[in-house]
């Protein structure tokens, strides 16, 4: 894929991540989830960006956290950035080394788990070890939400790579 096309795609994905993040604050909280828990639809955008290039992934994670900084404050932005970086790193590694073995749902679940683990770790620096007590709940919920964002990732990859004008051929199985 041409660099100009990658940059344009990264911009669109960043916009989608911000929009998804904003819309998510209007979704009523899940009744059994801890307060503040979010499904993480915007994670689908950062995972798609990770399929495009590491730079795009980093850009989307940064833009996403910058938006959180404006709307929800510094602590939330720090948590968002830590989670974003960790999930991007895991997604990049899986695309690079395990693409033949794992599907998008598996990538989504692993990415969500990395997101939760990183967030809880940073959270524990602020609040103390009590933060880790969240982890079991977050991991279980994250498995389902990760599968959901994984399906979105699959749809996005199909849209991007199965087009007739896809620059480097159909990378993605129909």
């Amino acid at each position, binding site marked *: 894929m041409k660099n100009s096309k990658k940059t344009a795609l990264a911009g669109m994905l960043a916009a989608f991540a911000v929009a998804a993040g904003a819309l998510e604050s209007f979704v009523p909280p899940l009744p059994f989830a801890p307060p503040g828990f979010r499904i993480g639809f915007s994670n689908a955008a950062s995972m798609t960006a990770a399929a495009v290039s590491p730079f795009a992934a980093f850009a989307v994670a940064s833009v996403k956290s910058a938006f959180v900084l404006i709307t929800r404050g510094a602590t939330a932005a720090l948590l968002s950035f830590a989670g974003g970086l960790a999930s991007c790193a895991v997604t990049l590694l899986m695309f690079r080394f395990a693409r033949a073995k794992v599907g998008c749902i*598996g990538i989504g679940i692993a990415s969500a788990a990395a997101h939760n683990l990183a967030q809880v770790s940073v959270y524990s620096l*602020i609040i103390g070890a009590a933060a880790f007590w969240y982890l079991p709940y977050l991991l279980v919920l994250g498995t389902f939400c990760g599968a959901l964002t994984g399906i979105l990732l699959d749809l996005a990859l199909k849209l991007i790579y199965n087009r007739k004008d896809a620059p480097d051929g159909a990378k*993605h199985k129909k």
Partner: protein
Amino acid sequence: MKTRMFKKADLFIAFAVLFAALCALLAISLAGGNGRTAVIEYRGETVKVIDLDSVAAPYTFTVEGDLEVVMEVSPQGIRFAYSPCPDKLCERFGTLGKKGQVAVCMPAGISVRITGEGEYDGVTG
């Protein structure tokens, strides 16, 4: 290389994550005795410990963190009754009465969790 929506290894990833969650949950719930003790912490340092099993009537008290929050204790458990912070996430946790439960008020830096240390207090005290 082609990517698909689902492959068998995905199930393995899902079970690995769920298994890790189960282990963490077991580690939390098996530690300590069968009692219910509320441990209130400010940025990781214990501020107050309350044996919930010995609470007869509900009462409230304030905890001084970065913000001053009001907590309510009753025989059912403990809850953040009021926090001056704008997001009110801590109030939405509701009453914690089971071992392993946790609630955090991040703007105040205050957390409360239910541990199983109460039994030992009961035996020794």
